[in-house]
């Protein structure tokens, strides 16, 4: 049961604008990419058997008062305790999502060490990072076209196919409807995504 931090830029997100424009150029007639939002996802994973509530309140304060996670100059955030987040993660109204993670270990050990130096958070086992792209699309066949959009704008396969992640460095999870948080946790904790290394 992890706590979740979701951050977005409140200044113009140039990456999202660029992705929106690039994505639109890649779509055929009849396919519309109406909106695109980028959100950074941080999962705070408790130690096995530890109650997340033990650190969540302090963590919330640390997020609000430090520069570790959020720069209020540029970003807005939502922090959801393990209780607040509920069992499922639902996309924003009308959207579907692509959750992307590195094929390396998703844990940010350096950040955890730095955070703990200033804020004792007993029971915090790991901080994991990922990125979610929320897409508002309209295509032939209504929601059924989402598969098709995913093929065209998701993992990069060729020069005119795929955009938002490179599957040789990243892995992705489709969020077409509400997804169980435990599936998200499992996806991010999966260690076996290393490409064959030297």
């Amino acid at each position, binding site marked *: 049961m992890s706590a979740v931090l979701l951050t977005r830029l409140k*200044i*113009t997100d*140039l990456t999202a604008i660029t992705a929106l424009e690039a994505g639109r150029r890649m779509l055929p007639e009849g396919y519309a990419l109406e909106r695109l939002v980028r959100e950074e996802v941080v999962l705070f994973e408790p130690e096995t058997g530890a109650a997340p509530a033990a650190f969540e309140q302090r963590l919330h304060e640390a997020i609000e*008062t430090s*520069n570790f996670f959020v720069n*209020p*100059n540029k970003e807005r955030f939502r922090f959801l305790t393990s209780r607040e987040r509920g069992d499922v993660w639902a996309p924003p109204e009308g959207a579907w999502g692509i959750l992307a993670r590195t094929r390396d270990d998703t844990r940010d050990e350096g950040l955890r060490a730095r955070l703990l*130096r200033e804020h004792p958070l007993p029971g915090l086992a790991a901080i994991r990072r990922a990125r979610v792209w929320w897409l508002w699309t309209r295509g032939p066949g209504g929601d059924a076209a989402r598969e098709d959009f995913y093929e065209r704008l998701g993992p990069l396969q060729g020069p005119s196919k795929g955009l938002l992640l490179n599957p040789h460095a990243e892995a992705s999870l489709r969020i077409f409807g509400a997804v169980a948080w435990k599936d998200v946790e499992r996806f991010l904790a999966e260690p076996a995504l290393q490409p064959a290394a030297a």
Partner: protein
Amino acid sequence: MPPTAEAPVLPFAESDPAALKKLLAAEGLRLAPGEVAKMLELLGRNPTRVEATLFDTMWSEHCSYKSSRRVLKAYLPTESPDVILGPGEDAGVVRFGVHEGVEYALVIGHESHNHPSQVVPVEGAATGIGGIVRDINCMGAEVIGVLDALRFGDPEGPRAATVREIVRGVVDGIWQYGDPLGVPNLGGDVFFSGRYDENCLVNVVALGLVRTDQVVRSRVPEAAKNEPYVLVLVGKPTDESGFGGASFASAILDEEAEDQRGHVQVPDPFLKRVLFEANRAALAWLHGQGAPFGFKDLGAGGIACVSSELAAAGGFGMDVDLDLVPTPEGEYPSEVLACSETQERFAFVVPERLAPRLLQIYNEEYALPLVYHRARAAVVGRVRTDGRYRILRGGQTVCDAPVEVVTAGIQHERPRRARPAAPPESPLPPVRDHDALFRKLIASPNLASREPIVRYYDTEVQGRAVLRAGEGDAGVLAPIPGSKLGCAITVDGNPWYVAADPYWGTAHVVAESLRNLVAVGARPIALTDCLNFGNPEDPEVFDEFETSVKGLGDAARALGPKGEAGPPIAIVSGNVSFYNESSTGRAIEPSPIIAALGVLDDYSVAITSGLKRAGNVVVLTGAREARLGASQLRHALTGETGGRLPTLDFESERRRTYAVLDAVRQGLLLACHDIAEGGLAITAFEMALGGFASQGLGLQLPISALGDTAAEVRLYSEAPGFLLEVRKEALPRLMSLFAERGVDATITGRVLDEPRFKVLDGGSTLIDIDLAEASRLHSDGIRPYVE
């Protein structure tokens, strides 16, 4: 422009002192009540909100130099035969040399971005770099390097966790801005001291190259009398980011730092890089047109400041129409549009007939609107020949005054009082284990290797590098392809020295910066200063400031190649940063930071500080004086940072400095390193280690010939001097050169063909360490604070 109505005004004149205070607070203005009275007197009426905001910005300490101007004028030499433009423009311009018949100049600027970096380290430091490179570019120059002088709190002290986050954030800000910009990092320095715990310093220096005949002034040209000129605004769309930034930079930091985070600007190096390329094309085209023009960057005070200053500098007025200013989506109040410090913007004043083509270069060829949402070039104003300065918005006149009223400036006379004398130095405990002391010192924050920081900086981009940060005592560039001309630059400061003795401490900093230049074979031609002090309203702080500036001026005059008899090393640009203290009233150490710029007629003579070949001898010049005040040794042994500084005799320092310069130029030396923090032992160790790479050599350093003082005096006295690596065959020539100049020289060591560092005193071995092991200790010293 359409006829305009008058905007509503702020009722200052009708307010009693209590109401005035309330009104100022409600409007977010930092003007003092006396300053409000002066503003009312100048305007002859109540100001509009835009006018009040404009005065608030222009009269901030950051923009107005209201406390410092008299002192700077009184003591600092700003002219010499090397100077083309001294202080007054955005950056100083000095002569460089001639290549293939074209005369070139170097442009140098120096700024601080202290308070923002304490609050939001990444953006704060990045914006510091972003601001100083604009200052260089707007003189018409290509930016060819940046340096940064950083002062952080005690990373092992009571606020260690915060200090380390700031270290990390500032370093991230510098590389994340500088690397995409494509400007190499030429060096810098880092100093840790507990008095920076709540107020770090981020000083930045930038260097530019320009054809002398293409230096662009920041003013409306005379020709605007004869044809219509317009104001063209270029770059990022204007938003509320950085609104109130200049006043913020002059405010005392308080504990509620997060409340100030919204004032910090949002820098964008990518857009800056595109703008630099577009500026290059635009300037080349404008130079080709032959019509005079003006160019200036937007910094503190935004559009209002840049337009009024461009106008006033040329003796003109201006109408600025805020309705024409590109913005992101949304509505912005007039005072925000007029005064916001939104980053990545420039302004031109050009003949109206040239504006369409100028806009085309930015908006079509360099595709600003495509590469950055809503960025573009736009005509936003028109030059007036009658000296009237107006800002218009939606049919209203939101600012209307003679331009000289807007730019009149303000001065304050600050009282001084000497600080009470410090208690006498406590005696140093005897050193029983030199080897252990040495291991401790080479890993201590102020003497440890800077490599963990430097490897985040791009030292190679532009392909002009000759010596990089850490290779030699100064960074050296060959800026003009195919030319022998080289330039060298260094930035230095020692806060403990200045705290112990503001006059001589500052003079020592100047001397060290010049030693760093000659060590690489460069002739010093100019200095810049960034003067970081506490609250100038505190008489003791102001006395320190004035005394320090006097020491700076005297050293700059005395240490020119001919001393007092000849021209000084002129101070061509600089910045004053006051209010560097926390709400608990704890001021930083007085921190003048000096950059020194030098020229090499032939860059090929430049040498590093790394030892070159086994069997060569090492020569010391500069006696090891038994004064250890403010030294790294004293701090390590006692935790104290005060005391009596080593003597700085201007005349002998000058002779030694220029003798070393000639020795490098004549090719008598293979390595050269100046002696500063950590004294002879650390200087020798760094030479043995090699600053940038290691050839596997070592050094044996017998110190018995260096007098009969305690070994720790000989090893760690920070008295000025140099260590020189000399081929045996060149030794007689070096000795006779030094003898002619009346400069001392003592053979002090020998280069070994194994990686060991050994210090011998008579029959005993004081230090004996394997350099691979020492290198690990040295480079891991500050690593935990950065990673």
